[in-house]
C-alpha cells in the first residue's frame, strides 16, 4: 500500500512559483500604493487574503472537531488530509497576527476608523464603542484566539500521529475515541466563541465601524467553512490522482460533494437572512452597509457573489454524477474557493478603498497564499502515514457507502 507521501518536485516547484508571484505582487503593491490613502489598498488586500486563507485552513481543524464529536466514521480514510491542511494554521496565524498588528499600530485609519483617537473623540458612536473597539482589546482577542486555534490544532495532530504507534485492541480504540472527543469538545467551544462571534466582528465588521449585524460572524463562518470543505476535497483528489489513499473512493468524494452542496445552500440561507432583513426594514443605520454594494460601484460583484456561490454549486452539484467524478469535483471546489474569496473581497473593499477596481493586487496576493498553503500541506503530508491505521472507525470508512 502506498501510504507514505513524497512531495513531487513539480508540486514543490509550482508552490514556489505561486509564492514568487505573491511576493512580487506584494513588492509592486508596496511601491504602487503609498501615501495616506494609497496605502489603504495595500493593507486591505493583505487583511482580506490573510483572514480568508487562515479561516479556510482553520476549517480543517473544525472538520476534524465536528466529525469527531459526531462520531463520524466515513472520513477516517482521509482524515490525514484535513490534519495536514490544519497544520498550516500556525503559519498563517502568525502571518495574520503580524498584519493585524501592523495595521493597528501603524494606525491605518482607513482600514479601521476606530484606531484614530481624534476620529473617535469627534464621533459619539465610535466613542460609545471604544470600550470594545480599541487597540488593547483588538490585540488581546487576536493573540488569545489565534493562540488557542494553534494549540488545539497542533495537539490534535500530535495525538493522531502518536496513535499510529498504538494497537487495534478495543481498549485502545476506546481510548482513542475518548481523548479525541474531549480535545475536540474543547476546540469546538473555542471555535464557536471566536469564529462564531468575536473574531469576524473585530477583524472585518469593524471596518464599517458604525455598522452592525448580529448575523455577521455566522455568515463569515459559513463562507469559510464551505471553502474549507472545498480545499479538503482538492487535496483528497490530488492524492487520489497520484495513487495514494487506496481506501478512499467515489463514495467518500460523493459525501464531500454533498457537504459542498449543502453548505453552499447554508451560506446562501445566511446571506439571504442578513440581506433580506436589512432590506425589508430599510433602516438608515443598517442599509449603509449595502449602499455601496448594491447601489454603488460594487453592484456587479453583489450579483456575481450570488451567482458563483449559490446558483453554480446548486445546479452543478445537484446531480449525483458530478459529485462522484474527480474532475468535476476539482472544478467546483476551485469555483467555491474563488467565489468565497470574492465574497471576502466585497466584505473588505467597499469599506476601505471604496472604489471597484480590477483586483490584480488582491489576486496576486491570493496566489501567493495558495502557493504557501500547497507547500505547507505537502510538507505536512510527508510527516505521517496517509492512513491512521489504528483508528477504530477506519474499517467503517473502508466499507462506507454513501
Amino acid at each position, binding site marked *: 500500500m502506498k501510504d507514505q507521501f513524497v512531495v513531487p518536485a513539480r508540486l514543490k516547484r509550482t508552490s514556489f512559483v505561486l509564492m514568487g508571484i505573491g511576493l512580487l505582487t506584494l513588492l509592486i503593491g508596496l511601491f504602487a500604493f503609498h501615501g495616506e490613502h494609497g496605502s489603504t489598498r495595500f493593507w486591505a488586500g493583505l487583511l482580506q487574503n490573510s483572514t480568508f486563507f487562515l479561516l479556510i485552513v482553520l476549517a480543517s481543524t473544525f472538520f476534524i472537531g465536528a466529525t469527531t464529536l459526531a462520531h463520524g466514521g466515513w472520513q477516517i480514510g482521509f482524515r490525514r488530509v484535513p490534519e495536514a491542511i490544519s497544520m498550516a494554521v500556525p503559519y498563517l496565524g502568525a502571518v495574520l497576527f503580524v498584519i493585524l498588528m501592523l495595521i493597528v499600530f501603524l494606525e491605518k485609519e482607513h482600514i479601521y476608523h476606530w484606531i484614530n483617537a481624534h476620529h473617535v473623540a469627534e464621533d459619539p458612536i465610535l466613542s460609545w464603542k471604544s470600550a470594545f473597539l480599541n487597540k488593547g482589546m483588538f490585540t488581546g482577542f487576536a493573540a488569545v484566539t489565534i493562540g488557542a486555534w494553534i494549540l488545539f490544532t497542533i495537539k490534535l495532530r500530535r495525538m493522531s500521529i502518536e496513535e499510529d504507534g498504538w494497537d487495534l485492541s478495543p481498549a485502545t480504540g476506546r481510548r482513542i475515541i475518548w481523548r479525541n472527543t474531549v480535545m475536540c469538545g474543547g476546540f469546538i467551544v473555542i471555535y464557536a466563541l471566536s469564529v462564531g462571534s468575536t473574531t469576524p466582528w473585530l477583524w472585518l465588521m469593524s471596518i464599517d465601524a458604525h455598522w452592525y449585524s*448580529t448575523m455577521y460572524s455566522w455568515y463569515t463562518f459559513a463562507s469559510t467553512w464551505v471553502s474549507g470543505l472545498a480545499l479538503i476535497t482538492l487535496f483528497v483528489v490530488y492524492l487520489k490522482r497520484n495513487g495514494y489513499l487506496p481506501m478512499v473512493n467515489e463514495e467518500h468524494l460523493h459525501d464531500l460533494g454533498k457537504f459542498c452542496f449543502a453548505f453552499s445552500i447554508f451560506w446562501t440561507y445566511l446571506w439571504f437572512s442578513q440581506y433580506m432583513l436589512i432590506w425589508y426594514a430599510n433602516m438608515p443605520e443598517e442599509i449603509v452597509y449595502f449602499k455601496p454594494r448594491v447601489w454603488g460601484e460594487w453592484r456587479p460583484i453583489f450579483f456575481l457573489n450570488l451567482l458563483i456561490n449559490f446558483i453554480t454549486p446548486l445546479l452543478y452539484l445537484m446531480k449525483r454524477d458530478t459529485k462522484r467524478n474527480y474532475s468535476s469535483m476539482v472544478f467546483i471546489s476551485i469555483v467555491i474557493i474563488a467565489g468565497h474569496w470574492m465574497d471576502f473581497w466585497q466584505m473588505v473593499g467597499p469599506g476601505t478603498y471604496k472604489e471597484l477596481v480590477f483586483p490584480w493586487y488582491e489576486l496576486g496576493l491570493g496566489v501567493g497564499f495558495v502557493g504557501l498553503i500547497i507547500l505547507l500541506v505537502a510538507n505536512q503530508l510527508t510527516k505521517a502515514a496517509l492512513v491512521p491505521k489504528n483508528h477504530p472507525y477506519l474499517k467503517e470508512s473502508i466499507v462506507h457507502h454513501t
Partner: protein
Amino acid sequence: MHLKYESTLREPLVDGEKNYHQVTEDIISPIEAKPGKLWYVGFFISLLLLAFGAFSVTWEVYYGTGVWNLNKTIGWGWDITNFVWWVGIGHAGTLISAILLLFRQGWRTGVNRAAEAMTIFAVMCAGQFPIFHMGRVWMAFFVLPYPNTRGPLWVNFNSPLLWDVFAISTYFTVSLLFWYSGLIPDFATVRDRAKTKLRKLLYGIASFGWTGSTKHWQRHEALSLVLAGLSTPLVLSVHTIVSFDFATSVIPGWHTTIFPPYFVAGAIFSGFAMVQTLLIIVRKVLNLEEYITMGHMEAMNKVIVLTGSVVGCAYLTELFMAWYAAVPYEFDTFYKFRAAGPLGWSYWIMMTCNVITPQVFWFRKMRRNVAVTFVMSIIVNIGMWFERFVIICTSLYRDYLPSSWGYYRPSWPEVGFYMGTFGLFFTCFFLFAKYFPVIAVAEIKSILKTSGENYKRGMEQYEGQSAEQFEKGLHHDDHHHDTHGAVAHAHN
C-alpha cells in the same frame, strides 16, 4: 461491498437477541392488547383539558378577543407565544426524518415515528392560536389568496404573516404525508396479524392494499426520498419565516439579522426536549427499552446541548450588539426592559433554562441518566416557552410612549386556551400510542443486521484485522457473490 459491518465500539441500536419476527412481536403486540389503566386515566385527563380549552375558546369567540389581557402595547401575548412554542416543538420530527436521514444516523429509526407524530400534533396545536387570535374566526379563510368579490381584495403578499400561512400549511402537509407513507408497511403488518375482522378491515384500508412486493417497496423508497428532499428545506424555512414575523419589523428587540438561524436552532432544541419527555414515558410503559436505548437518549441529549449552546451564543450576540449598535432604543430594550424591569424575571428564567442548565449534558453520566434527562427535557421546554414570551412581551410592553407602558398577565381564557392545546396534543398522542406502531417496524428491521446487539457480536472477528487484511477479505467476498455485488451497486 455488501458486508454488514459497523465498529463494535458503537453501542448497538437494538439490544437483546432479536430477529425480524421478534421485532414485530415487540412493537406490534401492544396495539393488539387492551390498554392499561394508566392509559385510560391519561386519556381522560387529556379529554378534560381539551374540553376546558374548547370552553375557553368559545368564550373568547363569543365575547371577542377583549377577554384576553392584550393591551395597548402588548398586541401579541400568550397566544403568539404559544403558537411559536408549538411550531418550534414540531421541528424535531422533521429534523429526525429528513436531516438525520441525509446524515445516515441509524439511531433515528428508533425515534422517528413518535417524533413525526409529535410534529403533526404540535403543528395542529400551533395552528389554533393565529386562527383564534383573528377574533372573527369565521372569516379565517380571508388569509387564503383567491379571486374574490371583496373588491377584489387580495392578501398582503409583503407580509411575513401571510408567508407563515403558506409555510405552515406546506409543512403540515408534507409532514403528514411523510409520516403516513412510513406507516403504510407497518399498518400492513398489523393487518396481516389481525385476529378480528374489524381490525383486519380497518388496518387493511389504512395500509392501502400494501402487499410488500418488490414494486411496492421500490415505489415506497422513491416516495420517501422525494418527501425527505422536500422536508429538508422545510426544517429551515418554517421557523425562519416565523422569525421573519418579528425580524422584518423595526421594533427594538425584534429586528435583528441573527433571528432566522437562531429560531431554527431553538426550535430543534425544544423539539428534541419534547421527544425526550414523550419517549421516556413511552419506552417505559410499552416496554420498548431495547429499541429506545440509553444510546438513543444520549444522542438526543447531545443534540440538545449543541442546539442549546447555539441558542446561548445567539442570546449573547444579541445582548452584545444591543450595546455595540449604539442605538438607545435597542439598548433600553435589552438592558432596561428585558434583563431588568418588571418583566425581567422572565429573561432570567429563559437564560437559566436554555443556556445554563443544558450544559450538564457535556457529561456522559448526565446524558445517560433517565431521571436527569426527563427533568431537563421539561426545563428546556419551560425555557423555550419563556424565550418566546421574552421576545414578544418584553419587546412590546414598553414602547416609545411611556404613558402606554403597562404590565401584562394573561386572563383565564388565555391560560385555558393554552391548556386546551395540551389536551388536544395528548389526546392525539394517546390515540397514536394505542393504535399505531410507535416505532417504525420496517425501519428497525433495516438496521437490525448492522446495529443489533446479537448481530454485532459477529463483527468482533474483524476488529483485530489490519486495514489491508480487512480490505482483501472484502474483495475476496465480492468475487464469491459476484451477481449479488452487481445488484447492490446498481441499487445504490
